[in-house]
């Protein structure tokens, strides 16, 4: 069927901030959808609250709204833009939930907006577990035994019928919030209550545990002619019981016979038809009993998902793009497969390699949280690796994770691990289980035994045993011959052993081994990802490395050169898996680098290993290499591509950490020199440099030993800010108030910084922190954005809210900041982007940190000011000058506020207080003509919507008590009832504020915790007292999270909130597109 002509303007809802369970993949799908729909001539209106996305670039959609994704705001956008349709299936669970809310509140009907892609009944049928269960049973498919409960009585009844262990799942949540495996009655009460609370419809499913069964996923697409194809099958290495986002997964499926696989395929077809997803992609999960093959349906997502992004990258089949085209009327056979150009999209990709996805965890950031995996997702990122064999792909994935492993290696001596620990780590899924499989095998456990304990299929374990046995053979060969033969090295490379691993075996350096390997004639070859296992000629240069006989990238390069003439090449190194501190912002920058280089006529080469991203879309650059970001893997690409320049500034710390070695290997790095990068990172050199410029910095020093550290700290005086060098996201950074804490810090920091010194700075208390992003071309400097933090210095810049333009800093200080920025940029000979953090106290402007690279705030600055900062800076790196660009220099008339989004609800038991170590996973932006409205919007975007009436609880530390009086009065004026604990109440009462006294936790019948549980409190303002945060306050903050009560932990945050309440109570909301703001 040709495209629909009854619709012209389409509203797309994005997925909001990056949170656990919802990451860059929806920027990828949304961006693809925008492009596809506009290509087809539709006008696209986009709403998303996340500024760090490519989809919110003003060029991506016709109209771009960075606004909260709530029905109230969406209705305002609908009123203004009058779209004909809304496409809800490409913005993750958030986008889908927003569309459901719009429908259920009658807003879509009122404004005559159609739902395309999936209609309301379909979404309900797939998402609502009871509906879904009925649908599955209707078509004769099997399900785990289960029952629904809407209250605790029903829950207990169901639990008795099903028996333990069982699983609790909460309806309408993402990433499995509020769910878990329950093995005992004690746990059941707690988990069931949590599940009921976190479901927006207070519904939980109590289900037979099929823990340990094999888990599979199929990515399905259907068009309006009822054609259905399976894009990809995925088998999970971690069996049922671990959230699929936390599992190591493999594509295609490995251990089903064709008959069994077809049975699963048939079930998927029947299910998508029964649910009635008219057009687009869906993801269906199955579990299979390894004993007898019984297959049960687990769940279905009637939208593109994290797995569909993975499937797209794993096969080359762009699911989101096609889903968008299907939603406007096309059928699969009317869409061309971009890759082969001659075959239609109505086919099933077949692949001739093995894909392994591995999740990246971040338990080290939340030391109080247990490293145990379950049905609730906890990973913050992932890496994907492609190899010709599972062994190769697995080892590539493990080194691509950047967690200090260089393959399936040994980080610890297996002999030192007690057997009980191995048993426990195998049995209880956790972030490092894959390595415990190896340790177990090394300690002599058999494949079958490991499988029995871990429930991981023998197929996977046996491959790992092969790797281990081969490793033993290699060590024996080295023992005997002091060397490895060419055949052995070749075999090792085919099985994915890294140069670093082999160099370690041979006791030589990695570059030495690399040379030896190349001298032996063993070099990586690159194969194409083409959707069809080479059956048809492919036109998309999307490659992975392996050790085979034919290199297709060389062949294709020759063809391209012959066709287009030899062009200059720029290679861009991406950021690898997302992690806290290094996420979508850097992918945004890498994409802009690619766009910029394309505009300048370069051939662009992208290297990245993160399947969620826009950068790994084969459309983003001219050539895509899906490879780990290690020295070896990057050099292998350099060897075949011979780029004229490599950009290492844009992918975060990952490529920056490679810069020095790449330069030593003769790789041409463009932009700021490696020496300048070192000058900024090397504390001693940097101090000298800053002193020479006459800029103030807090007293500081660095240390490589414990004694030295103590000496430095004593001479500077406590409190100090201590941290390891060469890390991102404030990893292990801490404000230390005494010597004892410093000693324990050093222990932790040693592991993180891997030989680099520990940095110790005087901590400037009560200072205002300012972030500056600037571009320098070596001669001139452009200050792109000055951001004032709302929270005081001491809270990681990635976690604090910040504002453009700065609302409280004087013109005089701003001028000094500009001057310092200029001096530093020119002094460091920066070419490209630079970020500086300042602390302002009184008239002092201290410099905290300089990073001569793209920073996390670059996309925010670009969105706030309308200057495509990353794109301009990339062009400057290859020789353009600032004077070549038209830059908007004047301060914008609107306020933009970046607020962070924190993952605390995922890690039970973790305190939510902010500090110098970054903990947020994502960010949102509030934009408005007034500061108050912008802040209020940012809070709503962050899911911390402020209450407009009700009761506010106040409890502040002694230093803040004086400052709270005026704030409390203001709140009283706005009509709020106030409650406070004894100390705070006393101060407020003596200043004439009416306040109700609340007992501390555990001190009375109506204590704080009970009030929270009974939803008697609507907002909490609680500033903890220094290091000694009291345990009852901690319990209170944890309870607040559980009951979804906004909780403000800084005085500055509280003030911003009061401002916001003031504005929103008095004026109401307005929405405005970026395109309009930029015109103003």
């Amino acid at each position, binding site marked *: 069927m040709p495209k629909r002509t009854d619709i012209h303007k389409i509203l797309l809802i994005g997925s909001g901030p990056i949170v656990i369970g919802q990451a860059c993949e929806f920027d990828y799908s949304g961006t693809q959808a925008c492009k596809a729909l506009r290509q087809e001539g539709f006008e696209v209106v986009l709403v998303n609250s996340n500024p760090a996305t490519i989809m919110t670039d003003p060029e991506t959609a016709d109209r771009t709204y960075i606004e909260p994704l709530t029905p109230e705001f969406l209705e305002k956008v609908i009123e203004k833009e009058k779209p004909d349709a809304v496409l809800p299936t490409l913005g993750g669970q958030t986008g889908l939930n927003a569309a459901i809310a719009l429908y259920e509140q009658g807003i879509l009907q009122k404004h005559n907006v159609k739902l395309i892609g999936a209609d309301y009944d379909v979404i309900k049928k797939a998402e609502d577990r009871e509906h879904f269960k009925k649908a599955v049973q209707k078509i004769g498919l099997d399900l785990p035994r289960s029952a629904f409960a809407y209250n605790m009585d029903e829950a207990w009844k169901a639990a008795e019928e099903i028996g333990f262990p069982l699983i609790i799942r909460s309806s309408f949540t993402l990433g499995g919030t509020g769910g878990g495996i329950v093995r005992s009655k004690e746990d059941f009460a707690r988990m069931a209550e949590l599940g009921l609370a976190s479901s927006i419809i207070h519904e939980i499913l109590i289900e037979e545990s099929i823990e340990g069964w094999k888990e599979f996923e199929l990515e399905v697409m259907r068009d309006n002619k009822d054609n259905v194809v399976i894009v990809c099958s995925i088998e999970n290495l971690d069996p049922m019981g671990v959230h699929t986002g936390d599992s190591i997964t493999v594509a295609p499926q490995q*251990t089903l016979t064709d008959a069994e696989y077809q049975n699963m395929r048939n079930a998927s077809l029947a299910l998508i038809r029964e649910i009635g997803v008219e057009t687009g992609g869906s993801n269906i999960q199955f579990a299979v009993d390894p004993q007898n093959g019984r297959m049960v349906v687990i769940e279905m997502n009637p939208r593109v998902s994290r797995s569909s992004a993975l499937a797209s990258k794993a096969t080359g089949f762009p699911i989101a793009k096609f889903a968008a085209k299907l939603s406007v009327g096309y059928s699969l056979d009317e869409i061309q497969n971009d890759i082969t150009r001659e075959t239609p999209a*109505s086919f099933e990709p077949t692949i001739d390699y093995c894909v392994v996805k591995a999740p990246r965890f971040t338990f080290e950031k939340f030391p109080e949280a247990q490293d145990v995996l379950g049905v609730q997702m906890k990973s913050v990122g992932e890496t994907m690796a492609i190899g010709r064999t599972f062994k190769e792909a697995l080892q590539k994935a493990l080194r691509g994770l950047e967690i200090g492993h260089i393959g399936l290696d040994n980080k610890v001596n297996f002999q030192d691990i007690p057997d009980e620990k191995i048993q426990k780590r195998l049995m209880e899924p956790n972030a490092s289980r894959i390595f415990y499989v190896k340790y177990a095998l090394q300690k002599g456990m058999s494949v079958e035994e490991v499988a029995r304990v871990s429930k991981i299929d023998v197929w996977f374990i046996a491959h790992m045993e092969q790797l281990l046995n081969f490793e033993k053979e290699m060590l024996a060969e080295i023992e005997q011959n002091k060397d490895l033969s060419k055949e052995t090295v070749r075999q090792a490379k085919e099985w994915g052993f890294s140069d670093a691993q082999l160099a370690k075996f041979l006791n030589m350096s990695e570059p030495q081994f690399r040379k030896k390997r190349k001298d032996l004639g063993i070099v990586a070859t690159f194969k194409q990802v083409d959707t069809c296992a080479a059956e048809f000629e492919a036109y998309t240069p999307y490659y992975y490395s392996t050790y085979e006989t*034919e290199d297709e990238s060389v062949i294709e390069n020759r063809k391209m050169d012959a066709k287009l003439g030899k062009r200059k090449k720029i290679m861009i190194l991406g950021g690898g898996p997302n992690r806290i501190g290094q996420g979508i912002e850097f992918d945004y920058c890498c994409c802009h680098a690619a766009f910029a280089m394309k505009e300048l006529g370069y051939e662009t080469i992208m290297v990245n290993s993160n399947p969620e991203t826009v950068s790994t879309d084969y459309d983003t650059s001219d050539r895509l290499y899906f490879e780990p970001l290690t020295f070896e893997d990057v050099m292998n690409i350099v060897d075949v591509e011979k780029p004229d320049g490599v950009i290492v500034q844009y992918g975060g710390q990952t490529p920056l950490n490679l810069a020095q070695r790449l330069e030593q290997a003769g790789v041409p790095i463009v932009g700021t020199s490696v020496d300048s990068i070192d000058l900024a990172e090397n504390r001693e050199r940097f101090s000298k440099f800053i002193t020479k410029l006459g800029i103030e910095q807090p007293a500081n020093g660095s240390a490589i030993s414990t004694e030295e550290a103590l000496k430095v700290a004593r001479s500077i005086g406590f409190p100090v800010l201590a941290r390891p060098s060469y890390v991102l996201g404030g990893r292990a950074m801490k404000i230390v108030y005494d010597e004892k804490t410093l000693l324990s810090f050093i222990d932790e920091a040693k592991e993180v910084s891997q030989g680099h010194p520990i940095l110790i700075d005087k901590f400037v208390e009560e200072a205002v922190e300012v972030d500056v992003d600037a571009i320098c071309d070596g001669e001139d400097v452009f200050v792109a954005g000055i951001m004032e933090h709302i929270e005081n210095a001491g809270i990681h810049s990635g976690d604090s809210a910040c504002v453009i333009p700065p609302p409280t800093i004087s013109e005089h200080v701003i001028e000094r900041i500009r001057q310092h920025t200029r001096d530093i940029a020119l002094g460091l000979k920066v070419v490209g982007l630079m970020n500086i953090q300042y602390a302002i106290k009184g008239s002092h402007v201290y410099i905290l940190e300089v990073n001569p690279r793209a920073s996390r705030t670059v996309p925010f600055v670009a969105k706030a000011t309308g200057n495509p900062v990353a794109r301009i800076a990339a062009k400057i790196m290859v020789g353009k000058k600032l004077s070549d660009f038209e830059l908007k220099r004047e301060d914008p008339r609107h306020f933009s506020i970046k607020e962070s989004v924190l993952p605390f609800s995922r890690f039970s038991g973790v305190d939510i207080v902010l500090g110098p170590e970054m903990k947020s996973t994502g960010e949102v932006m509030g934009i408005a003509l007034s500061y108050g409205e912008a802040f209020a919007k940012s809070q709503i975007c962050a899911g911390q919507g402020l209450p407009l009436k009700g009761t506010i609880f106040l409890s502040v530390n002694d230093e803040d008590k004086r400052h709270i009086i005026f704030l409390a009065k203001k709140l009283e004026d706005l009509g709020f009832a106030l409650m406070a604990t004894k100390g705070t109440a006393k101060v407020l009462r003596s200043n004439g504020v009416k306040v109700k006294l609340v007992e501390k936790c555990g001190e009375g019948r109506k204590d704080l915790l009970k009030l929270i549980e009974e939803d008697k409190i609507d907002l909490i303002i609680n500033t903890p007292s220094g290091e000694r945060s009291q345990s009852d306050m901690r319990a209170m903050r944890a309870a607040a999270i559980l009951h979804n009560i906004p909780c403000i932990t800084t005085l500055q945050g509280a003030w911003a909130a009061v401002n916001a309440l003031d504005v929103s109570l008095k004026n109401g909301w307005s929405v405005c597109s970026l395109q309009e703001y930029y015109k103003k």
Partner: protein
Amino acid sequence: MKNAVVYLEDGTCYYGQTLATTGETSGEVVFNTAMSGYQEILTDPSYAGQIVTMTYPLIGNYGVNETDVESGGVHVKGFLVKEFCRYHSNFRATESLIDYLNRYKVMAVEGIDTRALTRHLRERGAMRAIISTEDLDPKSLAQKMKKVPSMEGADWVKEVICKKPYLWPAEGEFKDRPRFRVAVIDCGVKFNILRIFARLGCECQVVPAGTTFEEIMAYKPDGLFISNGPGDPAAVPYVISEAKKAVGKLPIFGICLGNQIMGLALGGRTFKLKFGHHGANHPVLDSRDERIGITSQNHGFCVDIDSLDKEQIEIINKNLNDQTIEGIRHKKFPIYSVQHHPEAAPGPHDAQYLFEDFIKLMAESKRR
């Protein structure tokens, strides 16, 4: 494990290591892009005379079992893969693939850059090859190549057919009283075709290719089925002639080679495709309801679209990848045949409705 060479007729060599079976073998080398179903592929009689390369690199993952077989034996002349699995996993597995291949003495080679080989075949076309562990010298292999027969004109059907007629009974409720009796001309029939007929309540009277139309009619069948099979359809005139005789006398259904035989019997021509269709992901459009099915395919020859008399014959199925014929129907008589494999095994089941169509045809003609 012994080093082996795969020597192609254009002189290109690929190297790998054999499993237990060593020596020398030859045949036409083709690639199959299905990611699962190696056991069905190995036992499919249509692969007689051919060396099969699997494009999926990991083969043997789920072992082999006693039920997923398409005939009584292994028919490929050689089997080329990237890596054989050393430790399979599946609850139905009764044996490892490696043991199975060794038991059937298949020249099976691993360590091949199967993607490079596939790209080569895609560009140059399917060609003959010799696999050898004895003779690794390209010059002498070039000499030997001269004696390797071409697929064109070769009658491989006679190598794989049943020696004498047999009955495949109906199943389930129709076990004792079959709804229909289907005469199956065995050109190398896949068991799954017979299994599906049986499941649908038909008993199959299987007769070897070469059986005359008169002999077939003696079984009093309700319909005639012409099976899949190996090689060049032009090399089996003895089946084509009998199919011709059946036109207008019986409802006829053909699959794969059966489709080519019907095409020839109805006056058309066949030609050899460059590298054939061998896989489980081919989109086929059924023009009758505009629906697309993902189909299993395995053929090197094809009916020429222009050679058919459009007055008499309607093209009902087309391959959307290359627009070749995937199915025809007679406008006057209850006759149709398809080039793809609705019985799948391996591959998707999207086209299985075609069997039910045949049941309907038989029912209609019985009523008349």
